[in-house]
Each structure stands twice: as structure tokens, then as C-alpha cells.
């Protein structure tokens, strides 16, 4: 057992401490930060916090109050400044004391018509900030619920017949989560699987295999490799998840409107229960492929056939959304290679029968165990074969 830990630690450390791994793990968050940073910068460059002027000939906005700040220091609300006539507003615009001005039409309350006068320095926020100002002041006498209703618009909620599941327009997180988790799963499984595949093929290629198998048992060797390399992928996933959580916590301070709806614990459990056995199953299968192949290039070609089916549910995402209980959706959530993405995705749009969840999880767990067993067996048969692949049939035929 001690040697299992030695192999496990060696496999884990030799990848995790590699510069390329650290770079790979951090590059995704850095890339996203860079992307968001550039987007923010481009918005900020078009943003102008200078006041917005308005001319209100019909005195609709008497004793108007400024819209309260939402807490964004980066994009503060541009205050609205009243002018008695257009000439004074125009002078202020020319003096750069305001970024633009609006003239409310005589029939504004019935038509909502207003004229905006601006120059090249006017920010893209001028219209929306003045719009908020108008709404805030014109309906200030109404109850809060009406004000909220008017300012936030529709929220269409789609609910299942049983009433146990629902999704609303503001619950975009529920749809985004399985998609993001699916992409992360694919990346992680590919990384872990490829490490494992390389680790097994590499020792055949560099001929260290014979020394290893005269030092440890094939079972300890394979188990140490599978667990070590899976943990490499999990480390990457955990780092990314931590990053996403931090990003979700930090984002509202930049974008006050961006409030994240809570995610149900049962949904998170379903995702974990689906993804973990799938991960073991695919990683072990990759190990088995590595053991059958004689060169890493050959192994990667075979592994490609394994990873492509995982992303099939993304191709049919609209079909799953429209008919989450259709034959295609159910079939994909039961098929082991498509289940890790299809099942959580279906769960967003429908109430999946318990038997289907139980069957999918049972299939995935059974296949995970089977893959581990098979990879160990193929590994023992193929560990010293150079130039000749182990055929799957042999793994079942041979007894030693």
C-alpha cells in the first residue's frame, strides 16, 4: 500500500509542479480576467459620469430627486440637472458642464417622446441614466411594488406541472451552470485522461516499465497512476471552481444589477453524483487505452473517439430545452458517455423521474468500476508489449 502512495504522489507532483500545468490552470482565469478587463475598459471608455441636462417645459419633474447610487464606483449614475430653456442647456453642453441634454415634449406623458442633444463626448450611459431618472421621479408616488414592476419589466417563469421545478427569465444561472460545468468537465476529463494516457504510454516508450513492475505490483502501479492523474484533473477543476465563486462574489461590486440567484443543493448533488463516476469511468478508460497502445500519438487518436461523445449533448441543446422528456433527451441522459452533460441539463428544464436518475447513476458507477478493472487487466497484459497492441478480446480471454 505504501508503494501505491509513492506512485500516486509521484504522478500527482510531477504534473502539478510542472510549469506548463501551473500555466495551464491559471491561464483560463487570467484569460477570462483579461477578456472581462478589456470589455470593461471598452465600456468605461464610452462611459461619461458628467451630469445630463434636461429641459422640462411642462414641469413634469417638480422637486425631482436623483436616482440613488447602486454602489458601482466604476460606473456611477450620471446626475440629472434641470435647465429653464434649451439655450442655457446648450451653453452648458458647449462648456462641457453637462455631457448631453434632453428636451421633454409637451405630450411626453402620453407619447414618451423626448429629444436628445449630444456631442462627441456624450457617454453611452446618458440615455439609460436619464431614463432611470424619469421613471424614478414620475412614479415616485406609486407603491414600491409598482415602481419595481415598472423598472424591472417582465419575469416569465416556466413551471413543471407538478410544481416541483421552475425556471424564470432571471434564473439564467440554472441554465448556465450545467453548460459551464459540462465544459469544465470535458476539459478536466481530457486533461486527466491525457495525463494518464501519457503516463502509461510514456513508461512503455522510455522503457521504465520493466523496472517498475519488478518493484511494485501492476495493481498498485495502475491504481496509483489512475488516482494520481485524476487528482491532477480535479485540482484543476477545483482551482477553476474557486475562481468562478470568487468571480461571482466580486462581480456585483462592478455590476450592481448582476445578482446571482441561489442554486438548489439537490441540483448540485445531482451534478456531483453524475460527474464524479463519469470522471472515473473516462479517466480509467483512457488509462486502458494507454495500456493497449504502444505510442502516445496512437493512444491520443484512440482517445479522441472517447471524448467526442461527451460533447454530443451540446449539439442537441435546443432539442433538450424544447423536449427535455423526449426520447432523444432521455436516451442521452441514460447513455454513459453523454449522461454527464445531458442529465444535469435536462434537470434544469424538467422533473426527471427518479428511476431514470437512479438508472443513470447505477450505469455510471458500474461502468466506472468496470473501467478501472479493465484498465488494470489490460495494463498487466500490455505493459511489456512494444509495437503490438493488446486487443480488447485478450483482456477477457486471458486469465493471467
Amino acid at each position: 500500500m505504501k508503494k501505491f502512495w509513492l506512485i500516486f504522489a509521484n504522478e500527482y507532483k510531477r504534473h502539478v509542479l510542472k510549469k506548463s500545468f501551473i500555466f495551464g490552470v491559471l491561464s483560463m482565469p487570467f484569460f477570462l480576467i483579461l477578456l472581462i478587463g478589456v470589455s470593461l475598459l471598452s465600456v468605461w471608455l464610452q462611459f461619461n459620469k458628467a451630469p445630463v441636462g434636461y429641459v422640462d417645459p411642462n414641469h413634469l419633474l417638480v422637486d425631482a430627486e436623483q436616482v440613488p447610487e447602486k454602489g458601482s464606483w466604476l460606473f456611477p449614475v450620471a446626475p440629472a440637472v434641470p435647465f429653464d430653456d434649451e439655450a442655457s442647456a446648450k451653453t452648458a453642453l458647449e462648456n462641457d458642464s453637462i455631457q448631453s441634454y434632453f428636451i421633454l415634449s409637451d405630450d411626453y406623458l402620453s407619447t414618451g417622446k423626448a429629444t436628445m442633444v449630444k456631442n462627441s463626448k456624450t457617454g453611452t450611459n446618458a440615455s439609460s441614466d436619464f431614463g432611470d431618472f424619469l421613471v424614478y421621479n414620475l412614479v415616485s408616488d406609486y407603491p414600491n411594488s409598482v415602481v419595481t414592476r415598472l423598472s424591472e419589466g417582465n419575469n416569465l417563469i416556466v413551471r413543471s406541472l407538478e410544481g416541483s421545478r421552475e425556471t424564470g427569465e432571471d434564473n439564467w444561472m440554472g441554465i448556465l451552470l450545467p453548460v459551464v460545468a459540462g465544459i469544465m468537465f470535458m476539459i478536466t476529463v481530457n486533461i486527466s485522461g491525457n495525463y494518464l494516457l501519457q503516463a502509461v504510454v510514456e513508461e512503455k516508450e522510455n522503457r521504465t516499465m520493466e523496472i517498475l513492475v519488478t518493484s511494485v505490483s501492476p495493481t498498485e502501479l495502475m491504481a496509483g497512476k489512475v488516482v494520481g492523474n485524476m487528482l491532477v484533473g480535479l485540482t484543476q477543476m477545483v482551482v477553476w471552481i474557486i475562481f468562478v465563486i470568487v468571480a461571482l462574489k466580486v462581480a456585483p461590486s462592478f455590476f450592481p444589477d448582476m445578482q446571482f440567484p441561489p442554486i438548489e443543493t439537490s441540483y448540485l448533488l445531482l451534478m456531483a453524483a453524475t460527474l464524479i463516476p463519469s470522471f472515473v469511468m473516462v479517466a480509467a478508460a483512457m488509462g486502458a487505452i494507454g495500456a493497449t497502445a504502444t505510442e502516445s500519438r496512437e493512444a491520443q487518436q484512440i482517445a479522441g473517439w472517447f471524448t467526442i461523445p461527451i460533447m454530443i449533448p451540446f449539439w442537441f441543446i435546443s432539442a433538450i430545452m424544447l423536449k427535455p422528456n423526449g426520447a432523444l433527451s432521455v436516451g442521452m441522459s441514460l447513455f454513459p458517455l453523454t449522461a454527464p452533460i445531458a442529465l444535469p441539463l435536462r434537470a434544469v428544464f424538467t422533473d426527471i423521474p427518479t428511476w431514470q436518475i437512479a438508472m443513470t447513476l447505477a450505469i455510471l458507477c458500474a461502468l466506472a468500476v468496470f473501467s478501472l478493472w479493465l484498465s488494470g487487466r489490460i495494463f498487466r497484459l500490455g505493459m511489456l508489449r512494444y509495437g503490438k497492441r493488446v486487443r480488447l478480446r485478450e483482456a477477457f480471454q486471458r486469465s493471467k
Partner: protein
Amino acid sequence: MTAINVNVNEISKSFGTVQAVNGVSFDVQQGEIFGLLGPNGAGKTTSIRIILDIFKPDSGSVSVLGGPMTEQKKNKIGYLPEERGLYQEIQLERCLVYLATLKGLEETNARQRVGEYLERFDLGQWRKKKVKELSKGMQQKAQLITTLVHQPEIVIIDEPFSALDPVNTQMVKDLLCEERDRGTAIIMCTHQMHQVEELADRIALIDKGQTVLFGALDGIRRRYASDAVVVRSLQELPASLPGVREIIKQNNHSLLKFEPGKTAQDILQMLVQKNISLEQFEIAMPTLDEIFIQVVQSAGDSK
């Protein structure tokens, strides 16, 4: 009585229709260097892999350190396979320490012993270099460290001198002799017969999966000694001598092949009677190369 560390008893192994090993038997004693010889494809590597429990024999049995191979016994075996290999992308010292810990050494102990061997093998300054940066000869030495660092009771080495220069070859020879003196049983597979002649106490010759020769090196050489003597004289030998059917002149000596029924003693007496002054007179022993070729060819002819 010397303990037997490895006992191979009538092992056979086939792969598909190919009979790789067919009834091979030999034993290796504690504190001896045992030469396992044979032409390419004779079954040497398969026999070794069976000893190491990498392959299970179809029939026959192997006893290692008094019984079947176990995971614990693997720690007492040092193996240098014919197919050399180390992790190329990691530092030399880290690679060797890792492989030493897999042989049961604690990391601190492994690090200390690896350090000592690296100095001895003149690799100290390369310890922090990646293995792939080392020359073939250096990697060969590094692999020998892996084989010996855990002070095994049995050492199995396949072609230990390949890629080594004469200085390092001598160093490895000295090391193997040290190991033998320490009581280690060493099985050495090589095609370099002069190395076997120099180092091995006993040998087994395998051909076509079968043991065709087994025993002490001296005994085997005597068994295959031809009816000839090596003579070096201060004077020119006559063109013909009584009892000698052929005189073959070689560099600085002559090979006298005697007639049937004559012995070396008869030839010596004849030379003394003829007042031929001798500097050297010895029974012409065949080299291991000659025995090897003779045995393999005769085995081929008899098929």
C-alpha cells in the same frame, strides 16, 4: 554449504505458437556471478522475466530466496533490463530517489545512498540535470545505480557493459565483484564472452529455449578443451614433431595439435627430449566464444 538464491526448475513458456522457453533449469548461489548466455532469441529474457514474476511459466517452477516471488522479495532484487530506460523529463537525482523508494528505501536513506553512488559514478555534478540531458553512457551508469542502490540480495543484469567506455567498464566490473564478495547472487546476461570469462563463476547456455550447457566455467572449458597445447619457445620449432599432427604458428606462440592417443604429457616429454627450450607450455583451453559457437552450431546441426 552455499545458499541457493535462485532456483529455476524446468520452466516452459510459449507465446501463441512460439515456444520461448522449453524446460530451462539452473540455479544461482549466494555470492557468485552467474553467466546466462545464449544467442539472440534463445529465451534468456523470457527466463529472466519468469524469475522476476513478470510472466507466469506454463509449467515448471521458480524459487527466489527460498520460495515463490512475493511483493516483499521484489525489494531484494536489483534488475537492469536490456531495454534501458529512465524518466527523461525529471532531474537525475529525483528520478533515482523515486525508483529507490519503490525498492523499499526510506526517502532520506535513498537520497543519501543515491548521493554516494552519484559521486562514485562521477555523476555528482549532473544530479540536478534532466535525465534526457545525460549521455547514453551516463544514463547507463545511472541505471546501474538504480539496480544496486538498495543493496539487493539478487542482481539480474542484462548486458551491463554496453555503452560504457573502458574506464567505466572496469569500474562496473569492480562493483560487481564487490557485490559478489558482499554475498549477492548476480545473474549476468551478456554477449561479451570475454567479460563472462573474466567475471563468471558458473554459466548456463540457453539455445532455442533449452539449457544446452550448465556448470562451472573451468569445468566447461576443460570439457571442451581440444587435443592441443600452446607452446612458446626461444627457438624456432621444427616443421614436424613426433606425435604432433599439425603445428599452427600464431603471434608469438605455436599451437601443437597432437595425434590421437597422445596426451599433453607425451608432447612435453618429447619436447624436453629434443632439448627445445620452453618459455610457455599449457593445455590449449577453448575460449568461451569458441565453446558458444561450437555448442550452438552442434545444437543446430542435430535438429
